[in-house]
């Protein structure tokens, strides 16, 4: 186990070295907070008139989403796997005596950590300036963070499964972009589930993206109370997606045609 962690640490360090070598790329990657901030500006105005949540709760919700979306790596997975297949890079990674699944995740993990760095400054400023209102119930806080982590794992597994489509579909860019759009809605970035029609709100709440992003936000902002179906959904998604991934990965590898080399 220690050896496996050490190996993964070495991968992450190498990817970090590569990112740090290019200053412009590094600088641009630090602006991952712009989109959640724009949606927050929109919903803060609506929130005060809606009665569904206060302006402070809306700020708290989008602060959580800032963290969740910047640490989320599903977009990085779905957009990096296809080029890896078609450039032949996947072939070289598969020749390593180490988990190919983890190795391929090293770059998205590094990217997520780097783009999250500005949040150390931005979040306290937002929280103070916009009077963010978070729940103070320790049980809800612990549950929200736990559910968020389970949701994060589910979204990684889901994105992985989705990205494997690149091995079957020639023009993969279109379908990868589709998932990205769906994630904005289901994750709760476009709007909190409380603002959505009932059917769409439940589509959101029962998706792994909401657990990883909006669900955590609504719990921590005190918009929604902890409910029994949340942990059931989180664990259920992990079990189902884990099983599907175990079935899909060997098939994907048999399907792999090692193009590009």
């Amino acid at each position, binding site marked *: 186990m220690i*050896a496996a962690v*050490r*190996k993964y640490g*070495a*991968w992450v*360090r*190498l990817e970090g*070295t*590569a990112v740090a*070598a*290019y200053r412009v790329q590094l600088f641009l990657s630090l602006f991952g907070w712009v989109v959640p901030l724009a949606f927050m500006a929109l919903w803060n105005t609506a929130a005060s008139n809606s009665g569904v949540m206060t302006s402070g709760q809306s700020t708290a919700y989008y602060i959580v989403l800032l963290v969740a979306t910047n640490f989320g790596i599903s977009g990085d997975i779905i957009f990096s796997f296809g080029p890896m297949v078609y450039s*032949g890079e996947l*072939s*070289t990674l*598969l*020749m*390593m*005596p*180490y988990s*190919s699944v983890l190795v391929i995740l090293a770059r998205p993990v590094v990217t997520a950590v780097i783009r999250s760095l500005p949040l150390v400054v931005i979040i306290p400023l937002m929280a103070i300036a916009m009077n963010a209102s978070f729940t103070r119930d320790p049980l809800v806080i612990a549950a929200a963070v736990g559910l968020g982590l389970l949701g994060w794992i589910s979204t990684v597994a889901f994105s992985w499964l989705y990205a494997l489509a690149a091995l079957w579909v020639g023009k993969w860019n279109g379908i990868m972009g589709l998932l990205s759009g769906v994630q904005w809605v289901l994750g709760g970035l476009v709007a909190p589930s409380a603002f959505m029609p009932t059917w769409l709100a439940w589509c959101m709440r029962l998706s792994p993206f909401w657990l990883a992003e909006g669900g955590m936000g609504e719990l921590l902002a005190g918009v929604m109370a902890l409910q029994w179906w949340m942990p059931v959904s989180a664990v259920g998604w992990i079990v189902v997606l884990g099983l599907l991934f175990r079935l899909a990965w060997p098939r994907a*590898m*048999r399907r*792999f*045609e*090692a193009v*590009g*080399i």
Partner: protein
Amino acid sequence: MASIDEDSVVTLDNVTRTFKVAERTVGFGDTVRGFFHRKYTQIPAISNVAFTACSGEILGVLGPNGSGKTTTLKCISGLLTPTSGKVDVMGFTPHERDPEFLRRIGFIMGQRSQLHPDVSVFDSLQLRKVIYSLSDDDYQASLNELTELLGLAEFGDAPVRQLSLGQRMRCEFAAALLHRPSLVLLDEPTIGLDFDAQASIRRFVEGYVRAHHATVLLTSHYLADIEALAGRVIVMAKGHIAFTGSLAELRHMDGGHQLITIQYTEVRPDFSQFSWEDKVTEPKPGEIHLEVLRDEAPHILAQVGALSGVSALSLSDPPLETALSQIYATVSSEADAEQIP
């Protein structure tokens, strides 16, 4: 069918790999129809390939583009799963990608880099030390050996993307051999390199095999690579193995001919008295070529040597290209004949 003997490191037994390819049509109408009713074709990249490679052997794999050389290496490395047949490499089934199997092989692809382009070569090697669980002593010993043999010291701390092709290839060798694999797969390792770089890579491969008793499978379009390194060759054409044997046997594939080269200074020698006169060609002024059967060569040499005006005389095997062209042509015509209903 290839038999598995104790000394064999690689054994392929009737291995076939096909690729499912969608039939593409020309023109808008047919393309739209194809959207709703797509047809697929199974293209065999390799068919019933069977051979073995033994410990310490350098086995050359020759063939024109699309003959199945790289597909064969990919099946041996585990990158591709065979559609049928069995691949056995040191007791492992490659496509299962057992970590122990991966620790024992190295794969160098002339047209693809396994090094991170944005970091230095030494950074990439340091990562490999951790991934391959090399001890500090083993890593240092291997790194020192590779740095000396490949001359890495002068560019090892530069990002890979800034290296010349020759430098990059030397780094690829360092990355693939750092963990001292016992099976090395070389796919066009000298492609695009200048003469000096090719020669240095050949010397390195030869030295590595001698020092570590490794098995090497080498594909190359440069016959000089194969002639310099391989003790045995496989010739592939249209996904089939068309020839397996030594280089000498390959040269004799054309019926055992040899080439007599005759040089003269001023007056062209008179060959009219000999029965072989019609076989004489003069590719350039002052130099005459005569292709003869191996058994007849000594007798004809004596006849030519006695003629006046001959300034130099030599006997050589015909170039490998001659035998290869003959094999490719034969396989192609057989394959074409099979396709005719």
